């Protein structure tokens, strides 16, 4: 009998080459091996995607008193699994004009330690 190794594959986004990178996991769920990449960046990307994928999230929100909504982002990357939760938390914000670019609108969103900030000013 053989015990099969868990694997996952990712299309690398670092360049137009788009390598199909295969990550093999060890028994603790860590990265055991990486194959199929053409460069170091690809290997690093696949390892991150395999263990702790992260995304920066952007959205827009209505602002009372101003037709143009404000655009916002997470000030850093947050775990990919939390994307929908973070979007929901952002959508729950109630803002009033004026809002200034860079203004912190929500601290430590969904316990990620990351803030949500405005990316434009509206007034």
């Amino acid at each position, binding site marked *: 009998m053989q015990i099969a190794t868990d694997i996952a594959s990712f*299309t*690398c*986004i670092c*360049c*137009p*080459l*788009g390598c199909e990178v295969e990550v093999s996991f060890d028994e603790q769920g860590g990265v055991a091996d990486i194959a199929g990449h*053409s*460069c170091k960046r690809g290997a690093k990307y696949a390892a991150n995607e395999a263990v702790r994928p992260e*995304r*920066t999230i*952007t*959205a*827009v929100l*209505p602002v009372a*008193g*101003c*037709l*143009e*909504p404000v*655009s916002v*982002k997470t000030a850093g990357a947050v775990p*990919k699994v939390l*994307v929908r939760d973070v*979007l929901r938390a952002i959508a729950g914000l109630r803002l009033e004009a004026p809002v200034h*670019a860079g203004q912190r609108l929500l601290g430590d969103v969904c316990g990620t330690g990351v803030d949500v900030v405005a*990316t*434009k*000013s509206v007034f």
Partner: protein
Amino acid sequence: MVLAFSESELAGVRRLVDRAQANGIRGVRLLDEAGVRCLEPATGPGVSGALAAETGAICDPYEVALRAAEQASLHGATFRFNERVVRIQHLDAAAAAALDEDGDPQGPLGGRRRPLRYLLETSAGVRYAARAVVNAAGVFADELNNAVSEQKLHVVPRRGEYCLYDVDFGGMFEHTMFQAPSVAGKGVLVTPTVHGNLLVGPNAVEQVSKDDLSTSIDGLHDVLERARATWPGAGGSGIIANFAGLRAANADGSDFVIGEPGDAPGFFNIACFDSPGLSSTPAVARFVASAIAERLNAQENRAFDPCMMRIVPFSEIGESERASRIAHDARWGRIVCRCCEVTEAEIVEALHGPLPVHSLDALKWRTRAMMGRCHAGFCSPEIVKIVARELDTTPERIDKRLPGSPMVASSRFDYPRLARVEARAYLDRSARNAPCNAPFDVAVVGGGAAGIAAARAAAEHGARTVLIDRETRLGGILKQCVHDGFGLHRFGVELTGPEYASREADALAASDVEVLRDATVTALDVSRCDLSDPLLVHVVDGCGARAIAARAAVLATGSRERGLGALNVAGSRPSGVFSAGSAQNFMNLQGCLPGRRAVVLGSGDIGLIMARRMVSQGAEVVGVYELMSRPSGLRRNVVQCLEDFDIPLHLNRTVVRLEGEGRLSAVCIAQVDPETLQPVPGTEERVACDTLLVSIGLLPENEVAKTAGVTLDGVTGGARVDSRLSTDVPGVFACGNALHVHDLVDHASAEGERAGSFAAAFALGEKDAQRSATVPVEAGAGVRYVVPQEIDVASGRGESLALSLRVAQAVREPRFVVEAIDQVGRCRTIKRAKTMVAVPAEMVQIGLSASDAAGSVSVRVRVESGEMESNARVPRAAPPREGGA
């Protein structure tokens, strides 16, 4: 002109000429083949002769109908819209008398009026009693007639389909070109329109439905096929829209039905108006009106004023007249529809005209706004804003055409109030905007990334610089690109679009550049006597219409989206079809939700990003459908916008048909042959959706360049430039997406900087800044285009330059070879370069020194070796990839 393509058709045409002469029609004559060609050189090779009718002319049918209706309204006629007549009945004498106060012998008019004869009931539940009824119900005229008369009519709806071409094609023909009627049918016509477009059609297809105005795939194909006899160039390229109309054909004969049936006095038919309906209208109307007058014993209204003042559209008047209108009302200075040069004042005027405006299409036909080549992509969000504020309604209640064709799915309740606040701010601003009349060294047209960079670079070079932008806030399209991924090259950090724009705008504010906002450049006049004289940049804004003098100009006018019209998709014309960028504007700048269930056509970056935006905002995205065998957007966006949100991507598919009478209800998707890129018949599937986002590429916007006579490149769509980014018009430079569509905004900024410094050098009269000996750069094997198209070897000696190119097809490990070719055809390799992979979607840059090309007669860039990827064919006219991350 009526064209003949055979001896027998020529004989038929001869008979038409004879008949015209017998009828005393002047100016009708027979032309031989040479005569046709002399008048209309674009006519197809098969032509053998033609009838020419010099007195023939065209009009705008919508305007004819509108002005007549307005005239009637101003003289007391009441219009009831969106009320269908559902019942009509003869009134017997007793019922009539009961309803009739005026007709009562004891009533105030003493019975002088004729009796009430008909009772009409409408879908609104309203009843109207009338002494006379005019039945002008088009394809429904038979139903009304048959309800009151035993002399039955039978109308057959006969569909006619048309393709409308861009104004670039309007000059192809000067006459309306008919084809000789023959046993095979009446032929299709090719005609310029009064607005300068070219119109091709119609066919004649009998159908059952009286409501269905959709075009068919076969019908459009047939129209173009038959038009090619007249105009061999008739094809998909240049089409901006297709549409169909229904003629009310008489099933029991070929003639019009005019006047009262014998058994229905007071019921006047104007029915079965097949061709030539419009031309006959004035005479028929006079005839029917006098018959009605006789029947009702009515007197002529001596107060009737047959004349109406036509306010000449802004697009047709000169600069001084424009200035005086703007002085009167600043809204004349705000050009909302850039394609057709329609101002805010004209839109507001139309909205408050004698007859109500019930849809955006009605506004389009009255003002021409949204009728241009951008397919309303740029202007519809702005026009919706104006309509909402003027009519005090919200975008979700604004219809595109029919009731039930809302422009967006949802919008904020206080939208009209906030839109009015914005409008007031504009008027306040324009009153304060000081005119800038000083002569400048450099004028930059366009305040997006490339324009801002160009203006700063020019100012840093010591040039007095003005930047002119049509919007209030600088940054161009970046303002609505709220996603991140910009600026990694330029600033070393990932920024969102608004952040990138504000960094650039802040830096500009700290420079000496004078900025003219809310100002549209309408033309660039380069007809100066001497190169040392300035150019004239014609500008329109809230404080006037004027010319600004500058020694050099940088065109950074950006790009526009290819619209769905370009694909000549069949079907209906419902609301819910957006270019991805205009949907992005509605969402990100106005807070509207475009729709609830979307299909995305094309996998360009904006489409992918909008798919994610729609899902993030709670809408459903059914899938992204891409014509080619690979996605055309960045892989990063395929992963992070589609895969992260489980949105399926379907390759080798396209939309072939739209369904939905009001709002879009479904699209038909077909598989595409990867070799021919044509839809495969029989593979159509229907996908229910209320929204179609179109993301099929960007096209450089060069309307200002055209006014200056700048030569454009057939492949890039931008100006042809030399290594100093100078166009072939001395002193006119180009950069950014207006020059060629960039993949990253960072590159557009970098190119803007180069253009700005070269323009400054030219304007300041620096030695070597004038264009001199140039060597052409050619795209060799495997290369689709190279920018610049020429290298200035004399003045730019030793100068470093960048060749920007795109490959024709995907290739792994390409080697790029730059060769200089001398007078006897010998090739000398001057540069070799490589990348790991090259795809058409991504730009490749090769550094070079201008002196490398010295002594050669041309330079060629080609791809050597490398492994071509088999499933990555690129069509000849592949849409360029869109910018942004």
